[in-house]
C-alpha cells in the first residue's frame, strides 16, 4: 500500500519543489516524473494480472461524511497509470527546446495535474474520484490559458465551463448514489452492489455519461475540443489528448458500466450511435482542415469515437480493444503533436499548404513522423492495429452496419493522415522549409522512444492484453450478473 501512496504523492511533492525551483524546475520535474515512471514500472512488475485489486490503500479521510482515501490498482487501472506515468516524462522532455516564461509554474502545474490524474485512475471512493477529476482540470486550465496561443482566454473559459458543467451533474449523481447506499459511504463496491430500478439507472446514466462524454469528447459534446487543442501550448495539447481524455474513457469503464448496467443497456444504442456519428463527422471535417494541428484534433475525436463505441458494445473484444487503444492512442497522439510542435517551432506555422518537402532536409524527422502516422492509421505491425481490430470486432457483435460505418474511420483516417503527411513532408521544398534543421538531442530521444513503443507494442501486444484481460472479464461478468438480477 505504501507504494501506491508514494505513487500518488510523489508528483505532488515534485510540484511543490518545482514551484520554488525557479529556472531549474525543468530538471526537478524531469527527475520526479522519471522517478514516478520507475516506481510505476516497479509496481507493474509486482502486479499479478488477475482480477483482484492490489496495492490497496484505505484510510479514513472525512469520517463523518463517509469519505475514505480508498485507492487501489487492478488491471484496468494499471494500464492507465502506466500510460500516465509514461507520457508525463515524455511530455516534459518534449518541452526541453521551449523557453516558457515562468517555468517553475509551468512544470509545477504539470506535476500537480499528474497527481490528479493518478487519483482519478486509482480511486475506489467516488468522492476521491471526483476530487481527482477536478484537481486534474484546474492545472490544465491554467497551462492552456497562460501559455496558450491566440484567443486562449475565451477558448479556455469555454473548455473549463463545459467540463465543469458535466462534472457538477456527475457530482449530483454521486450524491444520489451515496444517499441510496445504506452504508452511507462512497465505496465503489457498495455502489456496485446497489439495487437501483431501471428509471433511476436511466437518469444516473445520463448524469455520468455527459461528464464522461464531454471529457472524451463524444459528438455532440465535442465543440470545445478543436479550439482548445489548437490554442493550447504543445505540452498542454499532449496532456489533454494523450492522458486527459482517457479520464472519460476510464470513467465509463470503472463507474458507468458496473453501477448502472441497465441504464447502459437501455441507452447503449444512443451512445454507440453518437460515437459512430462522431467518427464519420470528425473524419469528414478532418478532410477539410488546413491546419495540421486541427486535423489531428479532429482525427482524435474519430479515434475516441471508436473506443467509446467499442466499450458500449459491452463485450470482451470491444473492451480489450478499448484498453489497448487507450494506450496506443495516447502514445501516437502525443507523438503527432510533438512532431507538429517541432515543425511549428522551426517555421512558425502548421498550415499544411505552406509546408512541404521537409523530408529532404530532415530525413530523421520524416522517418519518425511516418512511423507515428502509420501507427495512427492502424497499419498491421504497429500499435494502432491490434486495438482497432479488437474494437471493430466488438462493434461487429452489436451490428454489422455499425461495424461497417465505424470501419470507415480506418480508411478515412488513412486517407487524411497520409495526405497530410504527403503535403507536409514530401514534395518540393519551399523557401520556408529549406532552412529546416533535423531533429537533435532531446527531440531525437523522445521521437525514437515513441517510435520504438509503437513498433514493439504493435509486434508484441500480448503483455498488454494479458495485463487487463482478467480485470475486464471480471468487470463484464459483474455487469452481466447485475443485468440478469434487475430483470
Amino acid at each position, binding site marked *: 500500500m505504501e507504494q501506491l501512496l508514494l505513487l500518488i504523492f510523489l508528483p505532488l511533492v515534485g510540484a511543490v519543489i518545482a514551484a520554488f525551483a525557479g529556472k531549474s524546475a525543468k530538471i526537478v520535474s524531469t527527475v520526479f516524473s522519471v522517478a514516478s515512471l520507475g516506481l510505476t514500472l516497479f509496481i507493474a512488475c509486482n502486479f499479478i494480472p488477475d482480477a483482484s485489486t492490489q496495492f490497496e490503500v484505505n484510510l479514513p479521510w*472525512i469520517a463523518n*461524511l463517509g469519505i475514505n482515501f480508498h485507492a487501489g490498482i487492478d488491471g484496468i487501472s494499471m494500464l492507465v497509470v502506466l500510460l500516465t506515468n509514461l507520457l508525463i516524462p515524455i511530455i516534459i522532455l518534449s518541452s526541453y527546446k521551449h523557453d516558457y516564461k515562468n517555468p517553475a509554474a509551468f512544470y509545477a502545474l504539470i506535476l500537480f495535474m499528474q497527481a490528479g490524474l493518478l487519483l482519478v485512475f486509482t480511486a475506489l471512493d467516488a468522492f476521491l474520484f471526483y476530487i481527482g477529476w*477536478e484537481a486534474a482540470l*484546474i492545472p490544465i486550465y491554467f497551462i492552456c490559458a497562460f501559455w496558450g496561443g491566440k484567443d486562449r*482566454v475565451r477558448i479556455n473559459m469555454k473548455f473549463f465551463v463545459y467540463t465543469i*458543467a458535466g462534472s*457538477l451533474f456527475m457530482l449530483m449523481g454521486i450524491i*444520489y448514489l451515496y444517499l441510496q447506499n445504506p452504508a452511507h459511504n462512497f465505496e465503489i463496491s457498495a455502489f456496485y452492489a446497489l439495487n437501483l430500478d431501471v428509471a433511476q439507472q436511466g437518469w444516473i446514466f445520463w448524469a455520468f455519461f455527459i461528464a464522461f462524454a464531454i471529457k472524451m469528447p463524444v459528438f455532440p459534446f465535442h465543440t470545445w475540443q478543436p479550439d482548445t487543442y489548437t490554442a493550447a501550448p504543445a505540452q498542454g495539447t499532449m496532456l489533454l489528448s494523450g492522458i486527459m481524455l482517457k479520464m472519460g474513457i476510464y470513467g465509463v469503464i470503472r463507474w458507468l458500466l458496473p453501477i448502472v448496467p441497465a441504464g447502459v443497456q437501455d441507452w447503449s444504442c444512443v451512445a454507440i450511435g453518437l460515437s459512430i456519428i462522431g467518427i464519420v463527422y470528425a473524419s469528414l471535417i478532418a478532410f477539410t482542415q488546413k491546419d495540421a494541428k486541427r486535423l489531428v484534433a479532429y482525427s482524435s475525436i474519430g479515434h475516441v469515437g471508436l473506443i467509446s463505441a467499442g466499450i458500449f458494445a459491452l463485450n470482451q473484444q470491444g473492451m480489450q480493444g478499448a484498453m489497448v487503444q487507450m494506450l496506443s492512442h495516447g502514445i501516437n497522439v502525443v507523438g503527432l503533436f510533438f512532431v507538429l510542435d517541432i515543425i511549428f517551432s522551426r517555421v512558425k506555422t502548421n498550415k499544411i499548404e505552406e509546408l512541404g518537402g521537409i523530408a529532404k532536409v530532415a530525413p530523421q524527422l520524416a522517418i519518425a513522423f511516418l512511423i507515428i502516422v502509420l501507427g495512427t492509421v492502424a497499419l498491421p505491425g504497429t500499435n494502432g492495429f491490434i486495438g482497432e481490430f479488437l474494437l471493430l470486432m466488438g462493434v461487429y457483435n452489436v451490428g454489422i452496419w455499425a461495424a461497417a460505418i465505424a470501419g470507415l474511420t480506418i480508411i478515412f483516417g488513412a486517407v487524411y493522415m497520409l495526405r497530410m503527411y504527403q503535403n507536409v513532408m514530401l514534395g518540393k521544398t519551399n523557401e520556408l522549409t529549406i532552412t529546416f534543421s533535423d531533429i537533435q538531442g532531446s527531440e531525437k530521444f523522445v521521437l525514437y522512444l515513441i517510435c520504438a513503443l509503437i513498433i514493439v507494442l504493435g509486434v508484441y501486444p500480448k503483455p498488454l492484453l494479458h495485463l487487463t484481460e482478467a480485470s475486464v472479464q471480471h468487470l463484464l461478468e459483474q455487469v452481466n450478473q447485475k443485468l440478469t438480477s434487475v430483470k
Partner: protein
Amino acid sequence: MNIIITISITAFIVLYAGLFKANKALLPLTVVGLLTALGFTFCAWGDNTVHFGMMQTDNFALAFSGVCIVGTLLIFLLTQNYFHAKSDNIAEYYTLILFALAGMVMMVSYKNMAMLFVGLEIMSVSLYILAGIRKKDFASNEASLKYFLMGAFSTGFLLFGITLIYGATGSFDLDKIQAYLVNNTTAISPIFYPGVILMMIGLCFKIGAAPFHFWTPDVYEGAPSLITTFMSTVVKTAGFAAFLRLFEGALAPLHEFWVMPLTVIVCLTLFIGNVTALFQKNFKRMLAYSSVSHAGYLLFSLIVLTKNSGSNVLVYASAYTFASIIAFAVLILVKQKTGNDSFESFNGLGKKNPLVALSLTIAMLSLAGIPLTAGFIGKYLMFLNVMTEYKTLLVAFAILNALVGFYYYFRVIVAMWFKDGAETTLATPVQYKVVLLVSVVITLILGVYPAIILNLI
C-alpha cells in the same frame, strides 16, 4: 456571557484610549480583547449554559461566535493605515466595530426573541454609523442613509412578526414557542402564520436575500471597503446563525408551512445574485452581488432540516467569510495603488505580485466552489443536504447558477494572470500578509480536511 462582557469592556477601553489620543495602542488593545473573548469561547465549550433565560451559549452559539470573532480579528489587522488616512478619530471605528460584534454574539446565542431584537439593533445601529463614517463622502452618506432606511424598515417587519408570535404563544422564549407548536398541532392560532412570514422577511432583509436585497450593492459599494468587508462577511454569518437558530429550532415543527416561501426566496436569490453579478464591471459590486448569491446557497440548509444543518452553515459561512476577507484585502491594496476597483485595475497583477495574486486566485476558486478549497466542501454539504429529500430540480438549478458563477469569479483570475497591465508592485504591509496567509491556510485546510469543524455542532 463572558464573551459579551469582554468585548464590551474592550470597546469602552478603546474609546477612552482614543480620548487620550493613544492611537498606537488601539490595535494591540483590541487584539488582546478579542483574543481573550476567543479564549472564553473555547473555555465555555460544551457547557451549554442558559443565562437568565435570555441567552444560551450552546456549541452552536460558541462556534458561530468563534467564527465572528476570528473574522473581526482579521479585519482589524487590515485597519493598518486604513482608518488613519481617512479620519482623526479612529477610536470610534474600533469601538463601533466592537459594539457590532457584541451585538452579533447576542444574535447567535439568543434564547429569547427580545435578545434577538436587542442584538440585531446593537449591531445595526453601529453599522449605520460605520457605513456613513466618511461624512464628507457622498457615496458613504448615501450608503448610510439607504442602509438605515432599509434596516429600520426591516426591523419593523421583524418586530411585527415577533409581536404576532407573542400574541399567539404568549412568550418570547424559543423553547416555549416550540412547545406551543408541538402541543397544539391542530389549533395553532391564525396570527402565528403571518408572524412567521414577517420574521422571515425581516431576517431576509438583514442577510440580503432576494427580493429584499436591493440595498446591498449600493451600500456595499458606498461604504468604506473595510466596513464592506465586515458587513459582507462577519455580519452576514451572524445574520445566518440568527436565522438558523429561529427556524431550525423553534419554528422547525412548522417546516412544511414556511419551506415553500423559502424555496421561492432561495431560487430568486440564486438567480438574481448570479446573473446580476455577471454584468458588473466593478469588482466590489461583483462581490456584493455574489454575496447575495451565497446567501441563496446558505439558505439551502433550511430547505431540508437535518441534524447537520447547523454545521453545514458553519462550514459554508466560514469558507465564504475567509475567502471574502482575502478578496477585500486584495481589493483594498489594489485600490490604494490604482485608485479604482474595476476589473481592469487587476490586469497584470500576477506578474509583479505573484503571492498576492495567488491568494486572490485561491479565494476566487473557493468562492466558485472548486475542490480542495473550503468553498467546495461548503457547496457540497449544501447540495447533499437538499439531496437527502431528493430535490434534484433544485440542485440542478443551483448547479446552473454555480456555472454562471465561474464566469465572474474567473474574470478576475483572467485579469490577474492572462492580461497585460500596468505591472505595479503593491505595497503590502506585514499585517496584510498575515491576514492573507491565515485566510489562505484556513481555506485550504477546510478544503482538504474539513473534519476538524464538521463535528463541532
